[in-house]
């Protein structure tokens, strides 16, 4: 049995011959991916926070909450959407607005609602810019082109159907509150300058 300093490892009772090759994993031993967006303050736009892997939307939301709201200052509201349900435009660079590459005219059809996210600087996060109504994803890009005046170039656009987004409920705002009590997670809570000073004084 593998001997460790760690009592938890000893309790695992890992046999010595544990190095035999592991059985191959099944193809689907890999969860779907979801994109998470957080709002850091009331009224501020949602911003892309990152990816979580989860077996379904509800668990994706929980994982995203653990991952992206561990500190009270980081999160006011949260939403997740399955990656495969997001339309991603081409990327542009060097001051070229990606909207210039979209040809055609917006249909004016308002049958579905879409959320639009813009990348305003390469390397930064996509930001939620607003909601448009259109007949499909391509049409939503054109609607967005018409709706939002741009003084700065946009390098990439993400579009998701509003109905595909799982959003935290305002009524459940309490779920973020407990974090404020967790001061021990903040660097601010670890002041020890006085202790060093006293120690130095004592040493002469």
């Amino acid at each position, binding site marked *: 049995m*593998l001997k*460790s*300093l*760690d009592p*938890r*490892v000893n309790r*695992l009772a*890992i046999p010595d011959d*544990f190095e035999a*090759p*592991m059985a191959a*994993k*099944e193809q*689907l*031993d*890999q*969860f*779907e*991916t979801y*994109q998470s967006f957080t709002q850091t303050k009331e009224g501020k736009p949602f911003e892309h926070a*990152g*990816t*979580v892997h989860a*077996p*379904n939307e509800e668990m994706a939301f929980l994982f995203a909450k*653990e*991952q992206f709201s*561990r*500190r009270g200052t980081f999160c006011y509201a949260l939403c997740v959407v*399955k*990656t*495969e349900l*997001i339309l*991603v435009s*081409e*990327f542009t*660079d*060097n001051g070229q607005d990606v909207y210039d590459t979209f040809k055609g005219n917006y249909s004016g059809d308002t049958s579905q609602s879409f959320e639009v996210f813009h*990348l305003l600087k*390469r*390397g930064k*996060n*996509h930001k939620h810019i607003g909601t448009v109504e259109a007949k499909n994803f391509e049409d939503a890009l054109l609607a967005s082109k018409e709706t939002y005046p741009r003084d700065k170039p946009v390098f*990439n656009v*993400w579009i998701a159907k509003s109905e595909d987004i799982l959003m935290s409920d305002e009524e459940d705002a309490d779920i973020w509150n407990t974090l404020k009590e*967790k001061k*021990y*997670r*903040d*660097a*601010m*809570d*670890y*002041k*020890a300058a006085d*202790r*060093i000073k006293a*120690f*130095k004084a004592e*040493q002469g």
Partner: protein
Amino acid sequence: MYGGGNVFESMKATALAEEDPIKLAEFEARIDRGEKIEPSDWMPQLYRKQLIRMIEQHGHSEIIGALPEGTWITRAPGFKRKLALMAKVQDEVGHAQLLYSAAETLGKPREQQLEDLISGKSKYSNIFNYPAFTWADSCFISWLVDAGAIVNQIANSKGSYGPYCRALERICAEESFHLKYGHHCVIHLATGTKTQREMMQAAVNRWWAPMMHFFGPSDKISVHSEILMRWKVKMASNDECRQQFLDMYVPKIWELGLTIPDENLMKNEATGEWEFSEPDWEEFKRVINGDGPCNKERIAVRRMAEERGRWVRQALLAPKAKYVTPLA
């Protein structure tokens, strides 16, 4: 937390000659302008490979690094220290998730990365192949190993790959708590009773050599290419990071009345550089290749978690689910 001394893939001189020269020129021009590379941009194969390897090693280091510290959660002195250490370990595992996702955007699925860690194909930061004997070892890790990692991560966060930069930005923000917490722990031991001071000093003595190894071999003997610097994959050399670490932390260790077990360690005031005994790079190589005190245990624990968690993953499998690469 993660050190330098990345194990980069050996590079063939012909690797670049096979790339499309026009696309390569555009790619390099974008980096020269200071614009980040995003996942669906064209990139040279070499850039993709080295980045996957670097980000993946970083992710594995977060996971494996949580093991020696996790050991001490139940035995940390007092409720507050337990809470803080638990929060820190949770952060580290969260960092691994962020990093695995960043590496996934380059085309290597997370499951594949986890498998390569368990099979020993991928490396992780060598320092975690050493055991944490006492609570003071855990304090040393929280303060100084994290400090070393921050030196590295801040350099890397100015690199050229967008998803890695975004992950590092988030990670660095959380690391500031780790650093302060770790420093707080060390201060309390070093300014405490005689027994506490001795315990802290013993930890410094044990961890100093692995800490010097942490930044990787000296630039004189390390084989990393100028091209990785030009493409902003590697942002600072191993020696630069080591110097910066010594500059920031040796005075802070000394002011606590602790000594560092290297009689040649001193700052050369004329050059502004720290001088020290040459670390034992043979030992570094031996440990990184599997023959350290904890290599076997670290991998076995990861693998056990994977095997024993199989039924949970099975229970959650959705037959129609489709894996899609993360976007950013």
